């Protein structure tokens, strides 16, 4: 028990250590912040792994993985909408392209009996990271193709184009069997670092380290994936913060605020918009890859507008458009509300049955109503989200001297 808790806590420690290190004041030297953060994060993780019952822990871990995937999507949308004001309502397209690309790149072509049931355009059997990179590139290329002609137009056209492209992408993956097994799921997407929880262990890890992870059983794999997913969120967040708190972010905000004035300040507005659109789409593509390797099997139904576009928008609105921390917070908070609402609907079953006999079966739709009300509430009472935009875009333009 203790050994497994130790291994699990090592995997859980990363996001906690990052949060702890960020919470320390900036005047502490970074090395001290890193060490203190790591120690604090790991200590909390160890206590959590020891104390929380395994069933609830498994639920929390899967919740956090999906929350992380949504956080990546919300960060991508934040570049497009939050900073640049690009109205992309086809997040699902870039999410789906990323997921299927990574799946095709990392799986192998089906052989033998499987080949009769499963078709795919290609299967390179490449490592996870190659799939991730390919996912980002594919989503970026799609964004170039969509954005090139439409970003010059008024923003409503971008909305129309993106919603259309999202449907198109989904329908292509639904109907083109040769591409990614059509309406049937594309299966066998590899799990990265699965060797940590398997018996022979990871050959490339030094034996003492590998021994640490020995107590983990294959059913503990989500802990490994949680570490990977949170690492993704952290890296995307840090990269975006760097880019946003610099002249790049300033130009994005200027274009959002007033295109004509940005043009008269010598900025190539069309190019800036395309750049932001592509960067956001690449991040959404990464989110897709992250999703595919978590689900192991994906099909077109996973990329419908509700889950892959609408919820991401509400997340960004809830957390705070134009603020990367807000995007992450919103993703986890809304995913909590969304999954929590399912429990509420379950609890309300007897009441619903008392009203009408067929109402309990329609219970799940109440969640949509609930989210819609939340959205209304945000727009009316908290239009800037939980944490709104910060006053200063670039870090060298702040009021203090020096």
């Amino acid at each position, binding site marked *: 028990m203790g050994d497994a808790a130790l291994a699990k806590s090592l995997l859980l420690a990363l996001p906690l250590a990052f949060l702890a290190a960020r919470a320390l004041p900036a005047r502490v030297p970074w090395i001290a912040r890193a060490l203190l953060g790591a120690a604090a994060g790991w200590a909390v993780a160890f206590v959590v792994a020891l104390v929380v019952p395994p069933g609830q822990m498994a639920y929390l871990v899967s919740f956090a993985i999906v929350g992380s995937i949504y956080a990546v999507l919300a960060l991508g949308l934040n570049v497009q909408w939050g900073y640049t004001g690009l109205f992309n309502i086809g997040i699902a397209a870039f999410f789906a392209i990323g997921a299927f690309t990574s799946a095709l790149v990392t799986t192998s072509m089906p052989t033998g009996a499987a080949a009769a049931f499963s078709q795919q355009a290609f299967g390179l059997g490449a490592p996870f990271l190659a799939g991730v990179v390919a996912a980002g590139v594919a989503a970026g290329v799609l964004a170039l193709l969509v954005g090139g002609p439409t970003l010059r137009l008024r923003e409503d056209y971008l909305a129309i184009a993106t919603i259309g492209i999202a449907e198109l992408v989904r329908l292509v993956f639904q109907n083109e069997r040769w591409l990614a097994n059509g309406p049937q799921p594309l299966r066998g997407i590899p799990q990265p670092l699965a060797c940590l929880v398997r018996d022979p262990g990871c050959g490339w890890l030094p034996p003492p380290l590998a021994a640490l992870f020995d107590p983990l059983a294959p059913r503990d794999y989500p802990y490994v994936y949680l570490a990977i997913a949170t690492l993704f969120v952290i890296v995307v967040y840090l*990269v975006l913060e*760097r*880019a946003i*708190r*610099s*002249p*790049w972010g*300033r*130009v994005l*905000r*200027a274009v959002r*605020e*007033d295109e*004509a*004035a*940005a*043009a*008269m*300040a*010598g*900025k*190539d*507005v069309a190019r800036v918009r395309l*750049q932001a659109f592509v*960067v956001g789409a690449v991040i959404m593509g990464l989110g897709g890859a992250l999703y595919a390797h978590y689900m192991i099997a994906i099909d077109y139904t996973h990329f419908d507008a509700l889950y892959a576009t609408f919820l991401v928008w509400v997340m960004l609105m809830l957390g705070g458009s134009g603020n990367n921390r807000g995007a992450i917070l919103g993703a986890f908070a809304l995913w909590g509300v969304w999954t929590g609402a399912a429990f509420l609907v379950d609890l309300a079953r007897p009441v619903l049955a008392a009203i009408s006999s067929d109402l309990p079966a329609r219970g799940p739709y109440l969640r949509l109503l609930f989210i819609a009300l939340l959205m209304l509430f945000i727009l009316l009472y908290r239009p800037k989200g939980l944490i709104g*935009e910060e*006053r*200063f*875009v*670039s870090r*060298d*333009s*702040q*009021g203090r001297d020096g």
Partner: protein
Amino acid sequence: MERMTPKHVDDPTGIPADAPRPALLRVEGLTKSFGGLQAVNHCSFDVRAGSITALIGPNGAGKTTVFSLISGFLRPDRGRVVLDGEDLTGLLPHQVFRRGLCRTFQIPREHGSMTVLENLMLVPPDQLGERFWNPLLRPRAVRAQERAIREKALEVLDLLTLSHLRDEYAANLSGGQKKLLELARTLMADPRIVLLDEPAAGVNPSLMARIREKIVQLNAERGITFLLIEHDIPLVMGLCDPVIVLNQGTKLAEGPPAIVRGDPRVLEAYLGGQHGAVDG
């Protein structure tokens, strides 16, 4: 015509005898129509290097359209815009800007949810950090440049007496302060020529005096050429030479302010045929 200028207006060289400097900006036969409306009609004029030139005319004369045609926001149907020998016709606004021509807008177009300082720091061209990867790969170079830009922005704020507002959202400035901010933004680019669209409109008298003083100062000290649209006749008469009068999309008259204000055609354009002095 004989009452107008010491020099004939339609002189192809465009160089008045009293100022032997060449034209910095030359507008040739500019024409633009919107549907059936002929907004600008074969409009030609020169702006001398180092001058403060006014573009005046009754409402609807096409002044702002001329500005938009020069600065690349609109494409002319016919005609050319030449800046210091280089043809600007058909360039996009940011390309025009890079050649040293800045404009302001009649209704200030500040970036409202950015601070005054950031509105200025936005402007300098060729910022390393404007490329996505540079803040990641070359953070030191980006920050060094940022500090230099910040220094410059603080100087410009100081020059235009906006320093106390530097961390304020631009949206919260008064109308007059926004006009100053627009002027400040053009200075961040080290322009050769600045087109000001009604710099004094809606500005209180003391702020207006300051704007005027700054224009004179920038013109004298930095050699910046100004072309400005203005309805405030006293301001124009005191500040600008020459004055170009536009009517119905074409140039009606040009010359020193004292002569232009006495020109009967100008009076007629403004007053619709009733003769009388333009209030000065």
